[in-house]
């Protein structure tokens, strides 16, 4: 392989607890992490090193499971096992708690901002997906509660350009939602994984989705025009990556700059896949081009590509560490 995954820095980010998630700010300058210590940490670069700039400690009573930056970079949302979602506003190097979104019956597993910055989605073990609208006065209001899943919803992700939402669940399915006549509804249910779907993401154009599962595979889904008319979506699985991951694949991330696909697995490894020149437009082939088999000493929970610096990848683990990688392509 001429590609390689090179370690840039290993950080003991959340000592004595799990680091569950990492997320780069839209301008690529900051990295937010969160974990079992109920804290959120913001990391920034000083010279060649990433250092901790801020610690947000008192926002939640339990594990902070995921964090998400607003598209403008001025807000951070955090989803917690305490059943709330906190919205933080950036003020210079610090963040202040703006509001707390309540409503879910139990643990909030994910939060994600729509590309417009006006909508927010959250999902929970209570099996529902909530869509929230935010106005110019920074007021948040729930506009819909979607109950398409029959079990714990693990992840939600927005299409990069359209107001289209996808969710991944413990019920092994993926649901895709769209707003139709002022009403949000489930447009499609993607079946195929044989166990919990832990994560999903869209590619740069939104034409394809990648999902990762406890069944140890990653699936690529593509949108096809439906026979039932224009504007209706039909998603089909066009590729399954199996045999690469020894245990659950907890996260998958599609780089918007290079098209590379990174995965985080319970076998302690971080892997990068790239697409081969397509055999046919309806089927795609991905090859493993780089891997760090002992990326961490425990499960890798998350991988995230820097949106501005091609090849810069962050991962985090049950051992509380974050690792910054450089994916090199010659």
């Amino acid at each position: 392989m001429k590609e390689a995954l090179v370690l840039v820095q290993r950080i003991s980010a959340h000592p004595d607890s799990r680091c569950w998630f990492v997320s780069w700010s839209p301008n690529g300058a900051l990295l937010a992490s969160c974990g079992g210590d109920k804290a959120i940490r913001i990391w920034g670069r000083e010279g060649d090193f990433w250092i901790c700039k801020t610690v947000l400690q008192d926002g939640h009573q339990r594990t902070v499971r995921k964090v998400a930056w607003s598209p403008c970079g001025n807000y951070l949302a955090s989803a917690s096992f305490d059943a709330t979602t906190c919205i933080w506003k950036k003020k210079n190097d610090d963040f202040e708690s703006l509001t707390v979104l309540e409503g879910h019956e139990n643990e909030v597993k994910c939060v994600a901002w729509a590309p417009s910055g006006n909508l927010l989605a959250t999902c929970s073990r209570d099996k529902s997906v909530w869509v929230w609208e935010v106005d110019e006065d920074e007021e948040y209001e729930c506009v819909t509660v979607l109950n398409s899943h029959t079990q714990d919803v693990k992840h939600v992700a927005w299409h990069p350009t359209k107001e289209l939402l996808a969710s991944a669940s413990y019920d092994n399915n993926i649901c895709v939602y769209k707003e139709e006549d002022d009403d949000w509804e489930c447009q499609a249910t993607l079946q195929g994984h044989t166990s919990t779907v832990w994560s999903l993401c869209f590619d740069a154009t939104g034409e394809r989705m990648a999902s990762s599962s406890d069944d140890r595979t990653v699936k690529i889904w593509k949108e096809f025009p439906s026979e039932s008319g224009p504007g209706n979506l039909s998603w089909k699985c066009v590729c399954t990556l199996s045999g690469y991951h020894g245990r659950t694949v907890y996260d998958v991330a599609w780089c918007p700059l290079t098209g590379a696909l990174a995965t985080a697995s319970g076998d302690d490894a971080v892997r990068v896949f790239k697409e081969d020149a397509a055999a046919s437009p309806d089927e795609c082939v991905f090859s493993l081009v780089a891997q760090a088999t002992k990326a961490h000493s425990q499960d890798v929970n998350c991988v995230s590509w820097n949106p501005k610096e091609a090849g810069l990848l962050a991962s985090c683990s049950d051992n509380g560490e974050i690792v910054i990688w450089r994916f090199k392509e010659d």
Partner: protein
Amino acid sequence: MEIVSSLVSSVVTTVFQLSRLGRNGMRVRTMDEKALDVYDVIRSIRDPEKPNTLEELDVVTEECVELKELSEDEYLIIIKFSPTVPHCSLATLIGLCIQVKLQRCLPFKHKLEIYISEGTHSIEEDINKQINDKERIAAAMENPNLREIVEQCVAEPDD
């Protein structure tokens, strides 16, 4: 001299191998012994409802622990336990106790899978899925009531 020294060296190597001494002379534990180490941790877990240990109630036995080598220093531990009562939440609770105690007490690097042994429960697949979902386990342990029960079950007698 060379023949003698090479003979001595091969005898020494064999002696080392027979006594299962590693290169640094430390006694290397076999897979069977490691499995026993695992069993030693879980046998004394108390049943959430009865004043007995899981071993006393035959919920776990020596044979219920299986070990597979994943790499040079990491093992996959597979445990199949048989809950006494066909009660869903109790079975999940026992699974939770086994997870928590092993996470805390095992000295060697491991990955863990816990299952209800087949035929002991009607919705075993549902329970197995829950017990092996680490996010669910983590959230459950942040519930103070559930945590209290688990702590009581996994506490050592001299704690």
